[in-house]
């Protein structure tokens, strides 16, 4: 076991929990990963904030399967509520509020069912990651209105994939250990992002989108 970096030792001595330090050091790495997926690969997802926060919500739930279950439940309700609320022709914010309510009730039900089936892991999930995931529905509804249901589902799916990969990156122990020993590594994301920010090449997804054009020019 290598030695913990002096600066982290200092943080710990000042009373900052190790988990918090790791999460904060991990944040730029996950954010850079998402930026890379957008600029170079062409996966859009719901911007950078949503996949990032969902990644951390996954980290905070005990076991990723519960996180994924809640995520999917939220999206399903979002899709369903669009059709249920359509005839009422509601304004945007009240519509989101109703959807949030229904999502909340459903999650509560899930927790109860989980408890009844003795799946205590689900009920033991702390409330903050759950709340984060419930608010995901607003992003979903907004995209639904702007770009339609199909795009919203695709983007939600992309967000889920990114967050799952992000979860595995952030909980990959060699990386965690590396950060504990060399916390400065996280600053490497700055030059990487400068490069990403200047990247003008085609995204990988665009090679597929323009495949026919490239062939026929």
């Amino acid at each position, binding site marked *: 076991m290598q030695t913990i970096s002096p600066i982290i030792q200092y943080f710990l001595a000042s009373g900052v929990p190790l988990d918090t330090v790791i999460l904060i050091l991990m944040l730029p790495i996950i954010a850079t990963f998402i930026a890379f997926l957008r600029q170079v690969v062409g996966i859009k997802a719901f911007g950078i904030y949503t996949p990032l926060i969902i990644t951390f919500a996954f980290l905070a739930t005990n076991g990723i399967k519960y996180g994924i279950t809640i995520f999917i439940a939220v999206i399903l309700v979002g899709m369903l509520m669009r059709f249920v609320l359509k005839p009422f022709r509601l304004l*945007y914010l009240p519509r989101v509020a109703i959807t949030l309510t229904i999502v909340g009730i459903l999650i509560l039900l899930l927790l109860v069912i989980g408890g009844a089936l003795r799946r205590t892991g689900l009920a033991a999930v702390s409330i903050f990651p759950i709340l984060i995931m419930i608010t995901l529905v607003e992003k979903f509804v907004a995209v639904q209105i702007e770009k*339609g249901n199909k795009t919203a589902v695709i983007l939600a799916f992309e967000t889920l994939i990114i967050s799952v990969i992000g979860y595995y990156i952030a909980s990959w122990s060699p990386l965690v250990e590396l950060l504990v020993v060399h916390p400065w590594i996280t600053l490497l994301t700055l030059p990487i992002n400068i490069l990403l920010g200047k990247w*003008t*090449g*085609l*995204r990988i997804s*665009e090679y597929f989108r323009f495949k026919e054009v*490239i062939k*026929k020019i």
Partner: protein
Amino acid sequence: MFEFIKNSRKILGMNSRNLKFIRPYNLKKAKRLADDKLLSKRMLRKNGIAVPKLIALIKTREDLENFDWQSLPDSFALKPNRGFGGEGILVVYGKKKNEDVWIKADRSPVTVEDLKNHIQNILDGSFSLSNTPDVAFFEERLQLLKLFKPYAYKGIPDIRVIVFNKVPIMAMLRLPTKDSGGKANLQQGAIGVGIDMATGVTTSAIQGKNKFIEKIPGTRLNLSGIKIPHWKTILTLAAQAQQISGLGFLGADIAIDKELGPVILELNARPGLSIQVANLAGLKERLERVSGLKVKGLEKGVRMGMDIFGGEVEEEVEGISGKKVIGAVEKVKFIGKNGKEIEVDAKIDTGAYSSSLDSELAKELGFGDLLDYFKTLELPKNFKREEAKTIEEDLRKKYLGSHQDLVDIGLVFSSHGASIRPAVKINFIMDGTSVVSRTNITAREELKYRMIVGRRDLKKFLIDIK
């Protein structure tokens, strides 16, 4: 594989669109103008550009409560000011008798209550970027052109033209379909048809973002070969819109109204990339070709767009050099003094400085009088080459101005020896370009071509020896 990578460099992707073109060429102020439909409408109209007429504006809830619904015409379009992607637009085509109920394209009724609700949503920002509160407006509904009737499903097709550096570089006809709900928006499933820039004739087509189609789904209507009317006007409008809006990289949406002709519907500061798929051509390549060119005027820019991106190689060269490409023998059309038009085959001869014309032909063109006069002059014979200059000057001093058609006298040395020839001023048209020529007259009847065109008259041309 190598070819694939090389060709992929001709395509404009999101990253380079944003970083290399939108960022440097579409400044904040210009973008704000494009995103504000009412503002861009006003600006365009002030500059004398045709736009759909504004019927009424609703800015607040109060406006909405006090609105006189009776004042609305039978057909109109209701739009959010900052809407994007065609969202939030409601179009009605007719009104029920004695009732405040309008009819939508799918025949469903629209009541005042429905309109109020829709406007409320617009005001609340349901259709605007990032849900900021918005303004709603009613606009006159454009009349569909007969030509487009079979192609468009319940909506108005429009033509997207990309303009860069004053040059229209690519265009696409967008046809509303059943899938797109009568909206001319590719993302919603409309059809995009590529257009040949030179002629305005459609080429290949896609539906949605990248499904290639040849006919309108469910019909036997071919999508290629549609000739878009008012083509040059459309390109000129787009170029004008760029000048007015200050958007360096612009996507102008232009519709053709039955009575008004081409009108600008909308300006777009972030034009989509699917136009490349519809045209099977790369935008980046085209952008790079016109960037850095000094384009003098609107007319010139439009001309260049048509020439450079209009298919044929010959026209490309003409576009770049601004010169016409002609062959070794070209048809030349004269308009004689007597108004008579004569067309002859002329030999292009870069070995000669001035053009020369057969004397018989000159007679037909009304120069007979001059030729008769010229014969009466006393002209020196058997002179040496060294003397040519002084003789020429003497003759000019003596005779120039003595006959109205005589503009010059020249000594010409050709393979037949030296001759003294009168020169006249005459205009001719070659390959559509008019040339003011100073042509000498000589007997050429035994020669194959009745005229040769010399270097002096070839400044506007490039010669292609085929």
